[in-house]
């Protein structure tokens, strides 16, 4: 139901997308270069995904995946748009489509080491400049208690 609406809205906008029905709901995988068009299409199409609920990253071990959690009040449904990005890669900023992306993008930028071209203020959100490693990548280890003591 939801995945059909998702794929028809995306194909109407000419965005190449791979739509699948997963346990969390309909997920559309789009290339990073088409992300803004995809989100704009989903917001403005009949399915009217009016709100970006959330935006978060996952480090799959090979690359980074950003998930955009959208909600349509008209259809009373949630959907997800997923974008893959290489480590230290670039994903266009979605803030002009959904202003609610402003803070989560800053967070993803610092914790996963991404850049969001087009973001008006891509400063660090949570950590200071002394923190060099992208903290939420799997390769960044947390110190054990002994290591903290020895320091």
């Amino acid at each position: 139901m939801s995945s059909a609406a998702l794929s028809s809205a995306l194909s109407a906008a000419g965005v190449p997308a791979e739509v699948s029905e997963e346990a969390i709901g309909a997920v559309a995988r789009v290339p990073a270069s088409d992300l803004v068009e995809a989100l704009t299409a989903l917001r403005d199409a009949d399915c009217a995904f009016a709100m970006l609920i959330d935006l978060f990253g996952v480090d799959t071990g090979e690359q980074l995946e950003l998930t955009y959690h959208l909600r349509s009040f008209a259809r009373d449904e949630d959907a997800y748009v997923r974008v893959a990005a290489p480590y230290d890669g670039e994903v266009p900023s979605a803030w002009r489509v959904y202003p609610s992306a402003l803070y989560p993008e800053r967070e993803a930028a610092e914790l996963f080491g991404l850049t969001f071209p087009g973001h008006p203020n891509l400063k660090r959100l949570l950590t200071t400049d002394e923190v060099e490693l992208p903290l939420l990548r799997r390769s960044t280890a947390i110190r054990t208690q002994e290591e903290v003591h020895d320091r």
Partner: protein
Amino acid sequence: MTPEELSQARITPEGEAPAIVLPKGLRRVPRGVDELATEHLIVNMGPQHPSTHGVLHILLELDGEEIIAAEASLGYLHRGIEKLAEHRRYSAVGTLLDRADYISGIHTELALAQATEQLMGIEVPEKAQWLRSLFSEIVRIASHLIAIGTYGMDIGAMAPFLYIMREREALLSVLESVTGARMMFNYVRPGGVLRDLTPEAEPLLRQFLKTFPGYLEEYHTLLTGNEIFQARVKGVGVIDRATAIAFGMSGPPLRASGFGWDVRKERPYAAYEQLRFDVPVGESGDCWDRYLVRMEEMRIAAELIEQCLDGMPEGDVMAKVPKVLKPPAGEAYSAVESPRGEVGIHLVSDGTDTPYRVHLRAPSLMNLAVVDEVMPGHKIADSVAIIGSLDIVLGEIDR
């Protein structure tokens, strides 16, 4: 000038001022220079400002008293909860998330427990579902009381804070007797809840329900009917519906803007499907509406507590779950209506006993983002009213 000359310089009863003879060395400013040269001033509000509700730091650019631009600077309470959660067993993640939104930890726990249950396909006993709703509402009142009390303090009304603490104490003693803790409960676990109501809990709650409507009237007298309070919040910090949706807001701030979205109604969880309740909605989306929505929600939450106590089924409070939780690989999202808005947990499992990724959708963070948009154009004193009306918890924003 001699004293005689000064007395002559006073304005005459006819209203004409005699020319003042300037002392030597002073010259009158040339006429025509009426415009004052002003300079924009950057003011650091916080992170130790008493009315930023924690360690929020807002940079305000001021032109005199007026705010030109505002920017929130966060991270003073960052503890790496999401990262730490990847290194703990599922049963231990709840204790971490309790400390995210420390005023209403039970909702974050509940979101995590539900996401874990989704992944593992655990059926939660009905009694546990009712207890979850009951404690959600108890904590909602306790949290809204803090919001209202501290909001009064921000605005300059000291008295309500002292009264809300009296009622909050009654609720906290119930929570303490059942969960063993006053704030960091770790009460909701994957599969159910820790334990049943203790024998003293129900009488305490019934007593509270008897007195609470009267106390609510008291707050209305103390705060709602306070002219100074009204003058400070009415028409201040208006967030219209479109802005609220664009910024992904949720909870009382969204409903105050006239959009009645409530997770308890739209995506019922725990026992909310069997409970009858209304969702209060504001009109104009100003600080006054956000305050009134919270007051109304407290009244409704008290009714829900009564419904939960009356309708509480018999049975187990915990499903049969393994000691070490190992959800199959997959993803789950679970949302809960916390006093601040929609708390969501995105849980990614890789089949081991520790989560692969735990993402907390913090309603305070999304609600705070609108501050940069709303504050410009207001006076500096209004910034306090706006922040207080959003009722943010920094533990959740910084994680």
